[in-house]
């Protein structure tokens, strides 16, 4: 195999499929699809380091599922070429659903291997703030998770938080580790300074993400923010009981440490000035607006201007900035039903408020806040008052006493405005001495140039093109200010990356960053999921939920409510992942490969090969004995197939060359059953030819190396080849027992693992009709490959009734097919053993060579011909030709004499008999018929 692989005139195209064949003998055009291996064959030395670090373990099909292999693998130890291949099924749904392209399947797999630092780098690759999204994300990854189709999605957010918390706990050790977060990204290699300056307005998630990307690409970045702290809404919009501030500050500091020049407490309102003159350290070549949506809205109803009407964002900001607010004894109504309203309600509860109510338009089921958080808020004591409209803030003696409301039937939002019917007679007052508005927030556009050069968009947000550039060239926009309302942190980070790519392209022209390539998303069905469980690629255990501290411990402090997973929980939860994409693109292999051979961006390749002859050697498939119920294959683990035995006895196999029972002990007695699936009218009527001999070989191996008693249960011993009979006699002499019979039942002592009693009929006189053994080996027969029909139609080859490819003549043309120039070799033509396959392959090669050597081909004289004068050009012959040998030319049929095989179907279909078949024309056939009737 190696010498074939290295031969200068032989080009091996592995991991490839023939998609179509056109042309004819001497002029075939073969269209080949080369699947991407993601590893450069010419660079790979086969060292296997990529497989060592690969966290994805799936069932090893070469070992027939007896062992596991990695997503980066080599087909077998002796594979030619020896290069590794990375198997990808596509993008996992979790990754595809995430706006930041988080490689969730990858870091989950790394957690499973307890490689928490590697998991942290995998997260950091796209996401600079793991602790935030481990806590406050709406985890679209979990909504998309394939596991959700079986029971519940993997707790991806919990696992991310586990990694983020681990990294924070080990923050002193991290700098000593190899930072792999840039491996495989465009930032992997140092980008020399470009001399371009970029200004970013807003130090929130979008702004900081873009800043980080641009700095790494060699641009000088200056960030301005009007707040006294960096982090934007992450820092001043999320209450401390959900996100510890010190952890977030640590992550923000890491970004700043990369070299971002950050100016806090700076309000920017001269954007054209940034681009043109030297204000604020300019001029800048590009500007990114990422100011977020920090302006809470308020309805203009009566008394909504009263000073005790507070805004949700103000409350959260004051708390997050460390102000000690005291709201003890206050009755508070929070107006709004979303996540900000929930955060505000739970925050004021912790500030000592006496009574907290949440009122909103939506009914309880339609409230936009997370369901789980509504539940928690209620547990903590927030009263929900959904389904009502606010008419007036009631003020008595200059003090707020309540909110006058009416109950409504809510129909949702139409064109951005609420649509509802008031229920008459339901007017009531919610008592309150403080009203906090949390009915949504929008961006503040007061800083935009007054000349309208930066357009806003109806109804909200800033108008941009596909590349996120605003109507003012050089000015880009990302994050909440782009969308015009509060979204999630992941959306802001995703837009930050996108804006950075666009800005890089803007600054560098065509050398800038390209948009990443996307593979198709994997969709697993119920059957696929069950198969993954069966192959041991995932655990069936239920989802581990996030636990919280008891309610009693939450009062008057901002202790984080939700707890992180323990290590044991995280390891258990990570086992639930179904590994949908197979390769998760965690890029550990890229970090490990010393040759730089790995390229995850590799594309499908299509080749068009011009060849003169084709040899088909597509082989066979093992018969699946599970189809024969009485053999109990799959039910009793100690009933195995011959191929499984071959893997076990192989020293590089899953057991290192030991033949073991399911309990790990060697068998003391083994029965070998012949003709499994062969010579049986219920399955395949043909003899598979090779099984008798390999059964004898197995018998000798078991006898010599396992030192067990061997029983061969055979139907007929077919030892027809050279030295085969001698091999059989030698086996007999070793003391192997040979019993004639057709096995009709296998029983186990304890119904599963215990001793196996094999029973048969048709036994010879004076011989037993059953035997009890430890292990049964099934000598399975040959079957055509599953895609034989497809291959046959691609190459225009016929099949015989057993499904194998049909030779042109069993005796006179055994390697030729009915299609000129296409030859057969090996078990794709019929079951055969290795000597026969090699002999046939030699014959096929010689037949192909004889054509090449002659340089000419002799055609069968009996082909179709057209009488052009009679042809009406109706095209019935064209449609009926099995070989596409006829085409219409100038309104009449024309026969390609190289393609025509002379079947005469066209002659029969021609209404005018303009088409005839030489040597079988109508006159000849009719004359014969008339003569026969005479």
């Amino acid at each position: 195999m190696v010498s074939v692989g290295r031969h200068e005139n032989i080009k091996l195209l592995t991991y490839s499929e023939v998609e179509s064949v056109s042309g004819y003998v001497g002029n075939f055009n073969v269209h080949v699809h080369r699947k991407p291996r993601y590893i450069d064959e010419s660079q790979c030395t086969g060292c296997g380091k990529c497989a060592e670090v690969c966290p994805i373990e799936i069932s090893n099909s070469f070992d027939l599922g007896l062992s596991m292999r990695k997503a980066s693998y080599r087909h077998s130890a002796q594979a030619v070429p020896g290069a590794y291949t990375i198997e990808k099924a596509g993008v996992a749904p979790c990754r595809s659903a995430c706006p930041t392209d988080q490689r969730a399947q990858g870091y989950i797999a790394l957690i499973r291997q307890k490689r928490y630092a590697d998991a942290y780098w995998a997260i950091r690759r796209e996401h600079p703030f793991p602790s935030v999204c481990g806590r406050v994300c709406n985890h679209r990854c979990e909504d998309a998770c394939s596991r959700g189709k079986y029971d519940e999605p993997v707790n991806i957010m919990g696992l991310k938080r586990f990694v983020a918390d681990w990294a924070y706990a080990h923050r002193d050790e991290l700098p000593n580790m190899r930072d792999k977060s840039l491996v495989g990204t465009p930032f992997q290699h140092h980008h020399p300074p470009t001399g371009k300056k970029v200004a970013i307005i807003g130090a929130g998630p979008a702004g900081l993400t873009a800043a980080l990307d641009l700095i790494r690409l060699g641009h000088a970045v200056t960030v301005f923010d009007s707040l006294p702290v960096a982090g934007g809404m992450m820092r001043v919009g999320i209450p401390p009981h959900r996100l510890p501030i010190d952890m977030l500050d640590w992550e923000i500091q890491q970004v700043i440490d990369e070299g971002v020049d950050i100016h806090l407490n700076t309000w920017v309102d001269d954007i054209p000035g940034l681009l043109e003159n030297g204000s604020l350290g300019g001029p800048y070549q590009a500007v990114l607006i990422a100011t977020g949506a920090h302006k809470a809205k308020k309805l203009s109803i009566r008394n909504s201007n009263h000073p005790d009407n507070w805004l949700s964002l103000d409350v959260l900001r004051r708390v997050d900035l460390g102000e000690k607010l005291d709201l003890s004894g206050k009755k508070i109504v929070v107006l709004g039903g979303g996540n900000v309203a929930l955060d505000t309600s739970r925050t004021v509860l912790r500030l000592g408020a006496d009574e907290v109510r949440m009122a909103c338009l939506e009914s309880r089921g339609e409230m936009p806040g997370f369901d789980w958080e509504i539940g928690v808020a209620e547990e903590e004591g927030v009263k929900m008052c959904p389904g009502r409209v606010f008419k007036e803030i009631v003020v008595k003696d200059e003090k707020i006493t309540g909110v006058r409301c009416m109950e409504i039937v809510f129909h949702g939002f139409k064109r951005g405005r609420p649509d509802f019917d008031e229920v008459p007679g339901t007017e009531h007052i919610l008592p309150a001495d403080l009203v906090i508005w949390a009915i949504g927030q929008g961006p503040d556009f007061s800083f935009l140039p007054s000349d309208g050069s930066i357009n806003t968009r109806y109804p909200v947000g800033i108008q941009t093109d596909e590349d996120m550039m605003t109507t003012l060239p050089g000015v880009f926009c990302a994050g909440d200010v782009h969308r015009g309302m509060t979204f999630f942190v992941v959306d802001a980070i995703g837009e930050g990356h996108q804006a950075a790519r666009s800005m890089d392209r803007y600054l560098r022209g065509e050398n800038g960053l390209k948009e990443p390539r996307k593979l198709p998303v994997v969709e697993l069905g119920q059957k696929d999921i069950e198969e993954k469980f069966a192959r041991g690629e995932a655990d069936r255990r239920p989802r581990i939920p996030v636990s919280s501290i008891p309610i009693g411990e939450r009062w008057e402090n901002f202790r984080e409510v939700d707890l992180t997973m323990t290590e044991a929980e995280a390891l258990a939860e990570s086992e639930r992942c179904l590994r949908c994409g197979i390769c998760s693109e965690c890029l550990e292999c890229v970090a490990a490969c010393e040759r730089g051979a790995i390229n995850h961006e590799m594309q499908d390749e299509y080749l068009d090969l011009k060849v003169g002859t084709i040899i088909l050697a597509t082989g066979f498939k093992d018969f699946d004995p599970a189809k024969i119920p009485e053999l109990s294959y799959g039910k009793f683990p100690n009933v195995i197939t011959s191929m499984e035995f071959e893997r076990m006895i192989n020293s590089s196999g899953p057991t290192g060359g030991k033949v073991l029972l399911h309990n790990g002990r060697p068998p003391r007695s083994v029965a070998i059953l012949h003709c499994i699936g062969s010579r049986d009218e219920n399955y395949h009527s043909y003899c598979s030819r090779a099984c008798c001999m390999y059964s004898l070989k197995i018998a000798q191996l078991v006898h010599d190396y396992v030192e067990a008693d061997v029983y061969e249960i055979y139907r007929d011993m077919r030892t027809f080849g050279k030295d085969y009979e001698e091999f059989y006699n030698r086996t007999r002499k070793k003391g192997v027992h040979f019993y004639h019979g057709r096995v009709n039942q296998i029983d186990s002592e304890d119904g599963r693992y215990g001793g196996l009693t094999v029973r048969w009929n048709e036994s010879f006189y004076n011989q037993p009709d059953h035997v009890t053994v430890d292990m049964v080996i099934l000598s399975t027969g040959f079957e055509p490959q599953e895609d034989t029909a497809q291959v046959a139609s691609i190459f225009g080859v016929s099949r015989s009734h057993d499904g194998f490819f049909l030779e042109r003549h069993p005796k006179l043309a055994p390697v030729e097919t009915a299609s000129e120039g296409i030859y057969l070799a090996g078990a794709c033509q019929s079951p055969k053993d290795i000597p026969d396959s090699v002999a046939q392959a030699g014959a096929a090669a010689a037949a192909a060579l004889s054509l090449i050597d002659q340089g000419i081909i002799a055609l069968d004289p009996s082909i179709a011909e057209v009488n052009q004068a009679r042809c009406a050009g109706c095209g019935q012959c064209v449609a009926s030709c099995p070989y596409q040998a006829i085409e219409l030319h100038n309104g009449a049929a024309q026969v390609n004499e190289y393609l025509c095989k002379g079947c005469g179907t066209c002659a029969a279909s021609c209404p005018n008999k303009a088409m005839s078949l030489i040597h079988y024309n109508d006159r000849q056939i009719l004359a014969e018929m008339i003569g026969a009737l005479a």
Partner: protein
Amino acid sequence: MFEPKIIAYLCTWCSYTGADTAGISRLKSPANIRAIRVPCSGRVSPEIILRTFDQGADGVLVLGCHIGECHYDSGNHRTAKRLPAIRTLMSFAGLEPERLRLDWVSASEGERFARIVNEFTDTVRSLGPVRWRIESTEKINKRESVSSPRVQKQPQIFLPETQAIREKARELLTNQEVECVIGYEMGTHNRTRPAFVYSPDEADRLVWNQECTHNLTRYLNDKLKVKQKAQSGNSQEKKPKAAVVAKPCDSRTINVMLAENRFERDQVYVIGVECGGILETAHRQSLSAKVSEDSGGVYQSKCLRCAEHTPLIADVLIGQATPAESTPSISQEEWLADWDGMSPAERISFWNAQFDRCIRCYACRQACPICDCPSCLYERDDSLWVGMGTGPNQNRTFHLGRAYHLAGRCVDCNECEQVCPMEIPISLLNLAMAKELDHVYGFRAGRAAEPPPFVTILTEDFIARVVEEG
């Protein structure tokens, strides 16, 4: 005892070898079988089958490779479709269907070959000598007069439609979008006739009324068909273009013509006319008559079978959509219902009377828009397929052969029957084939531009059925 003469067409790869295998195995097979070797069962054309019975064979056996094992990949798929079709047609004309058998024998199935041959010989023997050849002496030249009530009425020109057709024709010719508009004009005896309008001034010749019976698409063959083989392959030459006035039945014809690549779709401008049925002309009586309520005339039989009121293919639609009825007033089954109970002898005698009248004037063929071969198979002087005489046997071969050629292509415009001076019910043969194709393949000619089912390969579920039936 009667010893039938049976012709067996055997495929050389499977069945002929299978016959050899039977012989080598010393299996007995009757001497009645006369084997003719063909490269593939797909070579055996229905015309050959017809001719074999014409020559006096008592039975014909066609054996090929099993479906899926054809040496020529899918040659036998076509056999599996054609042979049942010709059997249907011939049994419609009076042959016992058991006399034609199609089966599959592989090279190794000697036993199966012997069994099939024995079975078939016994079957044919029990049927007795074939009565296919008409030994008629008495010429029935008289037409059977069918009297049906008919109100003679002056045909009305429908003004709105006529006006719209004239305007469209004028517009097309003025803009030189087409070279010719094919429509109807008034001829002698108040009857309509085809009109060819080449200039805008002549557009006022065109008319539309309920007697516009001709299928004008027939003339597209002459006007549009690419006859490049005669010319010097100058592909730059402008393709001829014509407009045609088309009823729903005519529009189906255009679909068939497009499937046969006679011209390209952009070469023809279809002036589609909404049609509520066409009336019989004065000289013809219908086999089945229904009095039209609005004009007092008699609807043509094809209109009673037609379910469509709107042309399937049209560049412009003219006229008011008549109330769309979802089913034909008389379905194919109803139309042919009388035939179900008829014995082969009755059928033979019916057709004997019909074919005996045929004078081989070929009017049916000339009027047919589909019949477009440069020279007709049945009008050659070599007598290979049929003699030139007008005996009932020759006439029958001509008519059955033509019906088979039209199977899957005939759209039931019924021009053939309209023009037949001897009033032979040609449409019955075409209907029998149409019914077969509809039942077996769900195929209706002209519904779309697709080739007839005989030339395509079998679908998977059809194979399952064929294999099951054996």
